[in-house]
């Protein structure tokens, strides 16, 4: 074959495959959203699921997912920031640093079901927290922490060196430079990454089946006492999240409209992740403008 013909064929093949991926995404999103959209209504979003009859909603599940996400972020963000700052600014190249880097790598590539099993063994049984929101949040911490460390480290590494040097020249302590010179510059990247990781946590199911549980008690949304068992804010109650609900409905759903419920819930889940994605882009840019002098510079 002439090189020129081979070149043409290869180009066509590459372009076709690339466009095929775009088509797969459009097909996927189109299918999920169009199939699920008819089923989404205010009633579906707020009412409790039905076991055997049709017409159940996903209200508690949606709330659980969001609440669990908030709990997880409250735990992981400060911890991830600390370890990430250490890796970016303090760690000297050496055996210990390599070891920590390896740990972050291994932790972030553990299958989520292993994280769930570990949670079942240690948090649910040994610490005796039972199937509860707090167990789920701690398991998700294992899942999310390595991500946060990476995000923070990368964000700090992109800060120009001169900023640090300027801080030293002013006689500031290293910690002060980290917190009040480097951190604001790195913050937009950190926030963008955090929101994106939140999207992953929001859709996580395997790690939660064995920790947050697969059932939700009856919730009384007018009861805001965090210690009462029927209160939605009680962190020690079992909580089925939206993603776990989709799995359960698909594998052992008894309601006659199980397929529609799964479609509706999937659409809600995907829409939320899409919103997270858009928010990450928007917020990152907005905060960058707010915190840095980029407006005055231009």
């Amino acid at each position, binding site marked *: 074959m002439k*090189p*020129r013909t*081979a*070149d043409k*064929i*290869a*180009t066509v093949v590459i*372009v076709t*495959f*690339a466009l095929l*991926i*775009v088509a*797969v995404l459009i097909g*996927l999103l189109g299918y*999920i959203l169009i*199939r699920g959209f008819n089923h989404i209504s205010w009633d579906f979003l707020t009412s409790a699921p039905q076991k055997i009859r049709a017409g159940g909603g996903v209200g508690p599940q949606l709330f659980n997912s969001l609440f669990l996400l908030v709990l997880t972020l409250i735990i992981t963000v400060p*911890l991830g*920031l*600390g370890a990430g700052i*250490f890796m970016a600014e*303090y760690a000297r190249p050496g055996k210990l640093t390599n070891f*920590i880097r390896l*740990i972050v*790598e*291994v*932790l972030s*590539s553990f*299958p*989520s*079901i*292993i994280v769930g*099993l*570990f949670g*079942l*063994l240690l948090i649910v*049984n040994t610490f005796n927290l039972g199937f509860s929101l707090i167990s789920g949040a701690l398991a998700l911490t294992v899942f999310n922490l390595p991500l946060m*460390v990476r995000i923070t480290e990368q964000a700090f590494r992109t800060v120009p060196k001169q900023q640090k040097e300027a801080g030293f020249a002013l006689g500031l*302590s*290293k*910690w*002060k430079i*980290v917190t009040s010179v480097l951190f604001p510059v790195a913050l937009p990247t950190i926030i963008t990454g955090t929101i994106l990781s939140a999207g*992953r946590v929001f*859709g996580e*199911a*395997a790690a939660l*089946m*064995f920790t947050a549980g697969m059932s939700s008690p009856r919730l009384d949304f007018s009861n805001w006492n965090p210690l009462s068992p029927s209160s939605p804010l009680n962190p020690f109650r079992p909580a089925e999240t939206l*993603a776990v609900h*989709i*799995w359960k409905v*698909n594998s052992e759903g008894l309601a006659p409209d199980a*397929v529609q419920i*799964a*479609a509706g819930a*999937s659409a809600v*889940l*995907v829409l939320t*992740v899409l919103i997270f*994605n858009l928010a990450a882009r928007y917020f990152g840019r907005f905060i960058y403008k707010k915190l840095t002098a980029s407006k005055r510079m231009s």
Partner: protein
Amino acid sequence: MRGQPTNKRLEKHHIENLIGRIYMSFCVLLLIVIIISMVYFVASKGIANFVSGEVKISEFLLGTRWSPEAETPSYGALPFISGSFLVTLLAALIASPLSICAALFMTEIVPGWGKKLLQPVIELLSGIPSVVYGFVGLSVIVPFLRDTLPGQGIGVAAGALVLSVMILPTITSVAADALASLPQNLKESSFALGATRWQTISRVILPTTFPAIMTGVVLGMARAFGEALAVQMVIGNAPFVPHSLFESASTLTSVITLGMGNTTMGSPQNNALWSMALVLMLMTFIFVLLVRMLERRNKI
């Protein structure tokens, strides 16, 4: 006169630094504690059956019969181990060519709008939760396979197809990064010699970036090997070594997902599930090791 405040400022300086260091050390220590306790707990549960003599390691790894409720129970996990490897390899075989083409499209063919088009597509694909992939697989791929090909639709082929879409973004983004970081002059000299674009891609670009692209493939396989729910929904969960791609099978993750809630803690059956979790964990270590080796090769 001025000595005093300087001294004070120095003290504050030290205290600040100290607090910062203590806090960071705590965070890093936590990471170490988490990983050590994870390995310890999963391993201690995973080897319980072998230590007590309930099940032999060889029987567990090579036995093909999984019937924990039979009168003489047998705990052969080979059907699940082979199932896991089969779907992972198939998914990598389907996804790798597609991903490499997508990466080439973004970096070599139309670097401008190609990247603008594919970057968000890749990000969105990687953001879709795995249960949603399972749901779509169950309601689109399974009926499609059932209508066009022999078998029930659920099975190895459906699992591999769902997984291949799930790992597309991983491979594509790693491959695209590798291609984008290739020195420009390599390509330019190839073009200067009169090579066509495809000649440049196939003889210069792909061989140079091969280790980096393989890193992406291994990362994708690691993800596929550990994926639980999406596979469980479409693979059929039959405890046999599959004889064809359209037969039901099981993976390690799908058996653990289904079995863990229905067995009592500490029973031999439950411990056998933990042994499978240990296998998963060891495979993760192997994948990480492979990635590290490939990255080292990439540096030279």
